[in-house]
């Protein structure tokens, strides 16, 4: 049987050659036969004739052979497709519009679904990911947060879990095979590989033996890192890789499918947790980890959650972090615990920030697709009406209804298939852009590019659904087609557009209205966010994020002198007007936690507010355009080592009374001894340094002085640079940093770009909905235009009679416009509740506008009516200009 399949497939693929072979084979036969007769002395023409007579029908024989060689049904299908292609080519405008609209709608849907899939639906690339649960404490936003690794031990006593492990993650400069690159690194407890079921393709996994203090430092690298950094060479085992502070020996490479445990952030290197931190004091230590457990088959997630809830106190008590101070203990003991599914990986913020916008956009895309379908279905209806005659002829010549159905379905399929193929390309392109943008904003961000079965199912379902919808629309008019009436009516067009068409047009209007409302809400919201006065002048400011070079471990902590030298180098670059050092990138990462602020010196009192703490050097306020409203800025050249200094934000200072009076007073920040006694030297104007909560423009902030604690700059010192104008010479910056010796430039960006990055979800939602809103409007306009044009031409006779009987132009125009008004009115009625739903759905993304904004809905309605009138204008004019004589002659 396989022989037959192979041959048939070949015959199908090389149809031309197979046909030529067959021709040749039979020609050979006829030639032999001719020669036979000629050998008997018959003249050639006569011999040839006899050979043909002897053979019988050549074409039927060939046909019979082809039936054997091919699949008859596929042959018929190809014939249908060719015919459909020809039919579509006859109406190139319709075809082009249909394919373009469908491609846009389909491509954007696919892209958004693929994004949702790769961010939120794809299971972790480990064994039976559905069994994995994350146990976490709950942070102040209600999100899961890390727990100390000390909690793993009491968790292991739980017999409802077959495995317990913890990991943390970092994104550090790693030197692999001589090249330094930022690489996602996971710190695994010794039982991670076993619990998660991650296999190595060669070498060995990390075991509990490795995860002990003093064990030789080893690392497993992921398959992708192995290919990228080591070119996939098998001699990687035993090679060294360097991370800041330590050198690790590669002992294994993971299986291909494993690319990390974090949502959208792939890992390259896996090291034992205990080997991880070179900054920790020597000796066994704990780390804050993401705790994962694999539940036993017999217990449900609910049961695990119930157990954790019941055991909460025990678990926390047995896991109080070593070295913790008493009030840190108490806080820890009050922690709430939560159990969530870890089937899709551990998520730090992606779901929080993007799930809602993405689902909102997905909804919009779905609406667009629905509008496109409705619109095209309407055009198809008009087209089907125009083809009534053709169809009627087909039926009268004996085509079965089935054949007509097949014909129309094939046409729809061809349209939808072409659009889907183009849509796939469009989606790939969109996802590429998302990947690049994501990497610009989040660094390690990576989208899995290979579509999985969900995306394929989605694509196929969309294809089948749309084809079916179109075919149904096309058939609507053929359903009770009586041959006689169709042949009689064709071209004369007594039938006006049916109620189905008008209903579809109204539905489209309604959906479009909702979409335009959503777009205008999101657009207004984005504008109002950008209009907020943040108290910071971000123009011409660049941020340069530094990271330790992996080979700079010899001198872990830099001194004030080192950074002052570095800053002087930066300031000497032409065009730099000021430069400062701080420990965060404004708008990129928010404040590191809030800490209680207590006034000392008896001035203490009533309030003990919690404030965000950031570390900045002198010139910070000048660089960002903040004002010092009392006291003075930090000074770089201060020689008298008094108490460490702080500057407070005005909002914080006002919590303690008059800002002026605070200068010279002392305060303590948090429970850290280093911050036990800090002197207030200045008060700075309010400034919002992140956009997590855009309404909060006067956050409480304590600015500590970098020069008092240079060792605390720890991982990512950031240089902020204000340019006098013009762009920053990035090569010069890199050179200065390189010359200084300890760090390299990880990332350079403008603060404006950071701001855009912080608003990425709002921006994406606003832009996308705006683009889709325009698309929907355009489609609605085209749809109405097509509908009315068709009506005018099909009612030409009727209009001619009216004109002949004395109807005035305005009356004829009214005849057309009236249609539009009905459609718009019904559409608005359908659209208003939809608009309110759209407003509600986007409410969480809105800032400064209400979801049920009258202005937005009224404006959108006006835009919609204007579009409808523009669409109606041309057909109405054409109807009015109709020459009654010409129109009636057609009768």
């Amino acid at each position, binding site marked *: 049987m396989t022989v*037959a399949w192979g041959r048939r497939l070949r015959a199908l693929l090389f149809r031309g050659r197979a046909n030529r072979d067959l021709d040749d084979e039979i020609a*050979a036969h006829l030639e032999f036969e001719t020669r036979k007769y000629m050998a008997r002395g018959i003249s050639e023409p006569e011999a040839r004739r006899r050979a043909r007579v002897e053979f019988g029908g050549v074409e039927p024989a060939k046909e*019979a052979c082809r*039936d054997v060689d091919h699949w008859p049904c596929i042959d018929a299908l190809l014939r249908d497709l060719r015919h459909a292609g020809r039919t579509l080519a006859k109406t190139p405008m319709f075809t082009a519009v249909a394919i373009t609209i469908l491609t846009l709608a389909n491509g954007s849907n696919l892209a958004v679904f693929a994004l949702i899939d790769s961010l939120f639906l794809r299971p972790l690339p480990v064994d039976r990911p559905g069994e994995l649960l994350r146990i976490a404490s709950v942070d102040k936003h209600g999100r899961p947060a890390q727990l100390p690794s000390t909690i793993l031990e009491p968790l292991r006593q739980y017999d409802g879990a077959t495995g317990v492990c913890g990991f943390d993650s970092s994104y550090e400069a790693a030197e692999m095979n001589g090249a330094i690159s930022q690489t996602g690194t996971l710190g695994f407890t010794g039982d991670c590989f076993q619990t998660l079921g991650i296999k190595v393709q060669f070498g060995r996994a990390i075991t509990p033996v490795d995860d002990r203090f003093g064990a030789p430092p080893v690392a497993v690298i992921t398959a992708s890192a192995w290919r990228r950094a080591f070119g996939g060479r098998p001699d990687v085992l035993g090679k060294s890789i360097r991370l800041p502070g330590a050198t690790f020996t590669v002992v294994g490479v993971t299986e291909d499918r494993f690319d990390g445990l974090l949502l959208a952030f792939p890992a390259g290197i896996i090291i034992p947790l205990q080997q991880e931190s070179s900054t920790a004091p020597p000796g066994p230590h704990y780390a804050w980890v993401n705790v994962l457990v694999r539940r036993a088959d017999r217990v449900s997630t609910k049961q695990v959650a119930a157990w954790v809830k019941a055991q909460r106190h025990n678990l926390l008590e047995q896991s109080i972090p070593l070295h913790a101070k008493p009030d840190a203990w108490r806080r820890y003991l009050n922690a709430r615990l939560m159990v969530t599914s870890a089937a899709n990986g551990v998520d730090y913020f992606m779901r929080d920030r993007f799930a809602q916008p993405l689902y909102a956009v997905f909804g919009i895309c779905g609406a667009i697709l629905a509008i496109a379908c409705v619109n095209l279905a309407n055009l198809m209806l008009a087209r089907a009406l125009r083809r009534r005659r053709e169809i009627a002829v087909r039926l009268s010549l004996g085509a079965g209804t089935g054949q007509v159905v097949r014909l129309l379905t094939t046409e729809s399929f061809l349209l939808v298939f072409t659009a889907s193929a183009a849509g796939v390309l469009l989606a790939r392109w969109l996802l590429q852009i998302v990947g690049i943008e994501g990497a610009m904003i989040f660094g390690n961000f990576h989208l899995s590019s290979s579509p999985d079965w969900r995306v394929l199912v989605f694509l196929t379902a969309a294809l089948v659904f749309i084809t079916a919808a179109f075919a149904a629309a096309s058939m609507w008019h053929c359903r009770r087609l009586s041959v006689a009436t169709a042949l009689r009516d064709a071209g004369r067009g007594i039938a006006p557009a049916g109620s189905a068409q008008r209903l579809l047009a109204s539905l489209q209007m309604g959906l479009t209205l909702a979409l335009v409302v959503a777009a205008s809400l999101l657009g207004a919201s984005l504008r109002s966010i950008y209009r907020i006065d943040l108290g910071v002048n971000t123009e011409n400011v660049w941020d340069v994020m530094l990271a330790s070079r992996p080979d700079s471990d010899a001198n872990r902590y830099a001194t004030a002198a080192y950074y002052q030298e570095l800053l002087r180098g930066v300031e000497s670059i032409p065009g730099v007007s000021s430069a400062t050092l701080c420990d965060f990138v404004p708008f990129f990462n928010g404040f590191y936690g809030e800490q209680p602020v207590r006034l000392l010196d008896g001035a203490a009192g009533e309030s003990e507010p919690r404030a965000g703490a950031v570390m900045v050097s002198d010139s910070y306020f000048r660089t960002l355009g903040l004002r010092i409203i009392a006291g003075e800025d930090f000074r770089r050249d201060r020689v008298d080592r008094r108490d460490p200094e702080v500057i407070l934000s005005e909002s914080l200072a006002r919590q303690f009374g008059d800002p002026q009076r605070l200068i010279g007073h002392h305060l303590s920040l948090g429970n850290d001894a280093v911050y036990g006694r800090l002197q207030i030297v200045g008060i700075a104007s309010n400034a919002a340094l992140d956009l997590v909560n855009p309404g909060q423009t006067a956050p409480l902030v304590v600015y500590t002085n970098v020069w008092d604690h240079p060792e605390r700059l720890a991982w990512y010192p950031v240089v902020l640079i204000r340019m006098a104008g013009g762009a920053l010479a990035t090569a010069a910056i890199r050179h200065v940093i390189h010359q200084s010796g300890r760090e390299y430039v990880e990332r350079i960006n403008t603060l404006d770009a950071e701001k855009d990055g912080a608003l990425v979800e709002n921006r994406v939602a606003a832009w996308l909905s705006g683009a889709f809103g325009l698309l929907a409007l355009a489609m609605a306009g085209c749809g109405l235009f097509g509908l009315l044009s068709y009506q005018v031409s099909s009612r030409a006779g009727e209009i001619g009679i009216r004109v002949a009987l004395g109807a005035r132009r305005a009356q004829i125009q009214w005849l057309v416009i009236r249609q539009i008004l009905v459609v718009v009115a019904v559409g608005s009625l359908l659209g208003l509740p939809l608009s309110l739903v759209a407003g509600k759905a986007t409410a969480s993304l809105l800032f400064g506008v209400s979801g049920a904004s009258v202005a937005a809905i009224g404006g959108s309605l006006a835009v919609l009516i204007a579009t409808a009138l523009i669409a109606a204008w041309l057909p109405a004019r054409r109807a009015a200009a109709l020459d009654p004589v010409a129109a009636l002659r057609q009768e």
Partner: protein
Amino acid sequence: MSDNRIDLLQGTLDLLILRTLDAGPMHGWAISERIQQISDDVLRVNQGSLYPALHRLEHQGWIKAKWAVSELGRRARFYELTAAGRRQLALEAGKWARMTAAIGRVLERA
């Protein structure tokens, strides 16, 4: 030319083709000539059904085809029995023998 020609019985063409090819590779025209020759012009192959039959047998894997130059110097498609075809031939020939014998007996004695 002579009236004693008979059209082939349904289903026997396959058997005849297989048996003819048992002698060696042959192209379509040669097969039909040989059948006529050996049957002393009694059996006449309908040439219009010869080629579909050849293609069908090829699909079933009983014969295989390749292009070669014929004795007359023209390129032609030569067919050849496969191992499966040889087995099929034995099977079909046996069936045919049993059937003709049975029919013969009925005609004789009934």
